Every structure is written in structure tokens, then in C-alpha cells.
């Protein structure tokens, strides 16, 4: 009975459809906002990332037609992995729209006949409930239109808001619309379009083949990929961005989400200016800027030093393990005064004594026992417990002709370190030993006495007085002449 009742009601509803369409599904009414200033008619130039349309250059508002086709496409997401993207314009992110504050924007949304899903567009630049979504809900093989006035300047995200909305966004349905302020943005040398998004595939990271959307991972907010411009490698290698030393570069950075908030950072650059969250507040000297899901920022930086700059989400595992990396290659002359080359690279052995510096052995009368302790904590890491050394890196002390030949030189080496080529038992070592002047006279004397009388070595003991005398003469690093 219930079904019969429902059915008759539904037939009634269908009759409504057969005649005039409900207002919110209307596809043949043409709404046009009229503005006395909007006399110029313009068709918006749309660009795919990373390209940005040129500035509008207009001093007055215009009537701007924006024409976007939604396409569902299978494309690489990483290497040999493909994914079914739902797109504004055939790629992720959607095409960049650039208009001017006060423009009347007539938006045409076409949904490809090959689409399986109905789609729509919610532009955050729109003032009005749903942001355009209810006006543009479009079945496959159909097109809709609506008009809005771009009341407020700023950089705004647009996205599909058809149910289930998270899935439409997770499949890549987002892009950016820039509403220029009346005076335009200050000129720069280059502008780029970068948009982050998180993706949820049934297979793991880099698992090959066509990967299905994984609803549970999306609900749990565990992305398989976090990407710039919809694919791993879309901004690296042959796809890297390019600029020259001295140029000012502006990035229009969006974050489609659906879940992750981006910590956008360019490694080795400080942002001169950040239009925080795409609005009118400009901050200077910013290292990392937070971009919410469904938000955007304009960042500007001046390239002063040549080289490769990595763009990352500084939630850094996303960059390292989920793909959120791009590259800006800057060509030009080196600027060593700003950023030198590596000017030194040498061995550092640490402080050596984990028990603290300048620890002095009390006079115990047992120089050998004391020396053994100093040796174990300070010397054995390189010269080894049995004084045997390590390969060609650290020379042996056991049976060392070099050690035993010159007591005074050995004291000098412990105090001041040694640098240069050393020949021990006929073998050459080209390494370095740091100074150990922080050891007290007693410790230096005892460790040398120990080394000169262990592992088969026999030699005269070294006294604290000898060490003190040597130290008093200065303890420069010993340079061994060959």
C-alpha cells in the first residue's frame, strides 16, 4: 500500500518535470546580471597548471565568459600508476581563471557526454549560497550557465560540490580563480600555478596499474599520495619550473585537499611577500605558509642565488614518501657573498672524552693504569683497543716506528694534532688527528707512557713535566714533512 501511495505522488512529481523544470534545475533560462560598467564583453583565457593567464590589464569591470568542460579521464598519477581523475578541463588542477574585481562572470559548465557522474562548480569567489553549485548541477552530456559578480578581490579555490563531495574533490575536481584588485597585482617577472591535493588509492604508494579510489583511506584521512598539480613529477625533472637570478617570482598556490592542510615551503627561499590565505593581508619574510584545504595563498620571492629550489609540503613525510615535491630551477651567476660554496670538509672526531674535558688523573703512581683508561676513552675509537689502527684510515700504534722514533714529536701530536701524510711502518696515511690539548699534562704523559709500553712496544716513560714544557712552547698542529 505504501508503495502505491508513494507511486502516485511520484507520478505527480514527474509531471512537474515534464512541464516546466524546477528553478534550480533550469537549463534554458539565461540569467544576466546587469552592471552599467560591465560594457566590455570578454572571453576568459584559461590555462592549465603551471601556467597562469596574463593579467587582465583592464581598468574597468567587464562581462567575462568562462567556459569549462568537466571530463573524467584516466591518467598517470605516478610512474606506472594510473588513476581515474575527475577534472575541470581535462587535467588536475582545473584551469586557472583570472578576472578583475567588479567583473560580471558568466560561467558555462559543460559535462562531457562520456562522464558517468553529474558535476557542478562551487567557486569560493562567489557571494551566494552554494557558491554556484546549485546553479551548475549538470548531468553528463549537458551544460549549465549562471552569472555572478566578483565582488571581492583575492585568490579563491573552486571545486565540484556534487555528492559525495569528498570523492569529487579527492578525484581532482578543484582549481583556482584569481580576482584581481582594481589596480591589478604589482608586476613580477614570472607567475606560476601550483595546487596541492591528497589522493587515496586502493593500492599502496607506487603500486602499479589503474588504482581505484579508496573510500576508507579518505575517511580516515590517510592519503596514499600528496601531490602538486595532480601527479608525481608534474613539477620535477623535465617539468620543473624555471626562473633567472634577479627575477621576482609569484606563485599562486592552492590546496584542494580534500583533507590535508599544506605547509608550503620553498627550500632555500624566503617569501618576500605572502598574501595570506589569498586575501589582502600581506606578510613579509615568511619561511613556510599554511594553506588550508579549500584555501590558497599568493607567495612572492626574489631569486638571488642560482640552483635548484625544492617546493615541498613541509609536513615533510608527504614530500619524502607521498610525492609532494616540485622544483624551481634558477639560472644565473653565482652569488658567493650571499651563499658560498662548501669551504671546508674535514674529519671531526668529536670531543672524544665522554667523561668531560681536562679530566686529570690524580697522582696514583700507576701511570700505566691511568694511561690505559685515557687511551680507552680518548684514543681507542680510532687507533683501536689493541693499538692496531684501522686499514688506511687510522695508523697503528702497536709496533709503530713513527710513534717510537720521536717522543717529543708524539707529545706535540697529542697536544696539537697532526695533519698531512704520515708514514707508519712503510704505509702512508693521509688523514688527520685533532688536537687533544684539553687533556691535562698528567693524562697526556700517562697515555703516551701506556702507548709506548703496550702491545709489544717498549720505550722510556713520558713525564708530566715534559708535557708541560712542550705545552709552554706552544702546541701548533704538527705538519709532517715528507
Amino acid at each position, binding site marked *: 500500500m*505504501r*508503495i502505491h501511495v*508513494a*507511486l502516485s505522488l*511520484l*507520478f505527480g*512529481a*514527474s509531471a*512537474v*518535470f*515534464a512541464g516546466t*523544470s*524546477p528553478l*534550480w*534545475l533550469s*537549463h534554458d533560462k539565461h540569467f544576466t546580471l546587469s552592471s552599467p560598467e560591465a560594457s566590455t564583453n570578454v572571453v576568459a583565457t584559461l590555462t592549465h597548471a603551471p601556467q597562469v593567464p596574463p593579467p587582465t590589464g583592464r581598468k574597468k569591470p567587464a562581462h567575462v565568459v568562462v567556459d569549462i568542460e568537466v571530463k*573524467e*579521464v*584516466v591518467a598517470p598519477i605516478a610512474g606506472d600508476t594510473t588513476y*581515474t581523475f575527475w577534472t575541470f578541463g581535462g587535467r588536475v588542477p582545473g584551469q586557472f581563471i583570472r578576472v578583475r574585481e567588479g567583473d560580471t562572470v558568466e560561467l558555462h559548465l559543460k559535462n562531457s*557526454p*562520456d*562522464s*558517468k*557522474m*553529474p558535476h*557542478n562548480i*562551487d567557486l569560493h569567489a562567489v557571494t551566494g*549560497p*552554494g557558491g554556484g*553549485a*546549485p546553479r551548475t*548541477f*549538470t*548531468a*553528463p*552530456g*549537458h551544460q549549465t550557465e549562471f552569472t555572478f559578480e566578483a565582488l571581492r578581490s583575492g585568490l579563491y579555490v573552486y571545486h565540484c*560540490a*556534487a*555528492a*559525495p*563531495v569528498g*570523492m569529487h574533490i579527492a*578525484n581532482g575536481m578543484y582549481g583556482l580563480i584569481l580576482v584581481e584588485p582594481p589596480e591589478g597585482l604589482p608586476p613580477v617577472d614570472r607567475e606560476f600555478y601550483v595546487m596541492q591535493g591528497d589522493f587515496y588509492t*586502493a593500492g599502496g604508494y607506487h603500486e602499479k596499474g589503474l588504482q*581505484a*579510489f*579508496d*573510500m*576508507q583511506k579518505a*575517511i580516515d584521512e590517510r592519503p596514499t599520495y600528496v601531490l602538486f598539480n595532480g601527479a608525481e613529477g608534474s613539477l620535477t625533472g623535465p617539468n620543473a619550473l624555471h626562473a633567472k637570478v634577479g627575477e621576482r617570482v609569484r606563485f599562486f598556490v592552492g590546496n584542494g585537499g580534500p583533507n590535508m592542510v599544506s605547509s608550503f615551503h620553498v627550500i632555500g627561499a624566503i617569501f618576500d611577500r605572502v598574501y595570506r590565505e589569498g586575501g589582502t593581508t600581506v606578510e613579509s619574510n615568511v619561511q613556510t605558509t599554511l594553506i588550508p584545504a579549500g584555501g590558497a595563498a599568493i607567495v612572492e620571492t626574489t631569486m638571488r642565488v642560482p640552483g635548484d629550489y625544492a617546493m615541498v609540503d613541509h609536513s615533510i613525510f608527504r614530500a619524502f614518501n607521498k610525492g609532494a615535491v616540485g622544483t624551481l630551477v634558477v639560472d644565473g651567476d653565482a652569488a658567493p657573498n650571499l651563499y658560498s660554496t662548501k669551504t671546508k670538509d674535514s674529519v671531526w672526531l668529536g670531543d672524544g672524552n665522554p667523561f668531560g674535558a681536562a679530566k686529570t688523573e690524580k697522582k696514583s703512581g700507576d701511570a700505566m693504569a691511568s694511561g690505559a683508561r685515557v687511551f680507552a676513552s680518548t684514543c681507542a675509537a680510532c687507533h683501536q683497543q689493541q693499538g692496531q689502527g684501522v686499514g688506511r684510515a687510522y695508523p697503528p700504534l702497536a709496533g709503530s716506528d713513527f710513534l717510537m722514533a720521536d717522543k717529543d714529536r708524539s707529545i706535540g701530536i697529542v697536544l696539537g694534532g697532526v695533519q698531512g701524510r704520515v708514514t707508519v711502518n712503510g704505509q702512508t696515511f693521509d688523514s688527520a688527528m685533532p688536537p687533544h690539548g684539553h687533556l691535562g699534562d698528567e693524562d697526556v704523559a700517562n697515555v703516551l707512557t701506556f702507548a709506548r709500553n703496550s702491545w709489544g712496544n717498549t720505550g722510556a716513560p713520558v713525564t708530566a713535566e715534559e708535557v708541560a714544557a712542550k705545552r709552554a712552547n706552544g702546541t701548533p698542529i704538527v705538519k709532517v714533512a715528507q
Partner: protein
Amino acid sequence: MIAAVMGAVVVAIGAGTYRPLFPPSPNEAQIAVAAFSMDKTPATNAELLAFVKAHPEWRRDRIARIFAEPTYLTHWASADALGDAKPDQPAVNVSWFAARAYCSSRGMRLPTEAEWEHAAAASNTSADGANDGAWRAEILSVYSRPSPQVLPSVGGKTNFWGVSDLHGLVWEWVVDFGNATSAFASGADRMRFCGATAAGASDATDFAAFERVAFRTSLHASYAMKNLGFRCAR
């Protein structure tokens, strides 16, 4: 019970319960579905061609524009010949009006949304696949892929009831597709978009059901789309 009608196989579907994604009212969270019968497969090009020949007012060159948009049956070579369209492919580019007329000519009707959803809730092994995560994930992944350029023939794997092709071949008309629209859209623009759609949904994780509701919501009765077919019930 299986019976042949005009060459089509009709399958019996047992009574059951339909849980609407957007219950029309709190008292209708579950809707009883009486036993009924439906075509084992979607209507085919061959079946629709026979219908059009017998009822020439439904030819694409004679149909009133109010009953079908210009894409109606445009995948055929002419108004009364299939050409490259295969006889056993599902009939698509058919408006709600034409689908209803076809079913009526067979003494049948379009299924209700409740009937269709009840039949389609069955997995291969159970009358209710709602708790079968793998089965639900498979449906979602099938929906996510773009429509193939050349549609397969009807007669894929059968489900618990012995019905084929409910998921993944083509979308299908239901007689009360506007019911989805009105439930989904209750309160004007309020419920239909973005995060707001989850509010009031009976199961916010049944994305495939969201997609079917969203799809039905996007339709007008005159629409004729290349991935939208139908089957009959009684």
C-alpha cells in the same frame, strides 16, 4: 521463477526492506518492498528497435521534443536501423518517457527507486550486501571509471536474485527518479551540495548510493544520455 516476455527474461525478486539514503521522513527510514519481478538485463537496442517499429511515434524523427531531447537514440544509424550499434548492447539515449512507453507496451512499468535499490542491494551471494565492504568497494570502483567508448553487451554476472548488470554497465531510469530529487533537495538548496549532503543521510559511507542519488537528481525526464538505460518491472 523465470518467465520469458517478448524475448526478455524476467526474474522474481523477493520482498525486502529499502533504507533510503535520504529518508523522506523519520518514519520512513525503512521502506517495505513487496515481492515483484524485473528484467534480468537492461532493455537492449534490438528490443527498443522492435518497439519503435511497432510504435513509430517513438521514432527519433517523430518523437515530440518535450518527450526527449535531441540526443534521443542518436547512437543508431537511422530512426529505424541500428547500424554500428549492436543488438545486444543496452539501449541508451532513451528518455524517461520513451522508457516508460516501452515497458507499458510489454504490460510492464519502470521499477520504483525502492524496488531498484532493493534488487541492487544484493551482492552475488546475499540479498543484502550492505555489510560486505569488499562488494561495496567494488561497486564504487566500477562507478568511478569513465564510461567505456563501446558499451559491453548485456548479461554480465548475476546477483543473488539472478539479475545482471545493475551496477557498472549503464545507469538506469526508475519511475520515481524525481523522488531522489525531492528527498535529496528537501528544503530548496539546503541539502544537496558539499558537506551538507551528509547531513540527514542514513549512511554517509555508502558513496555508491550517494552517486546514484546525485545522478538521479541531475536528470530531467526528457534527458537521453549515452550511459543511461533502463529495465522494466511489474
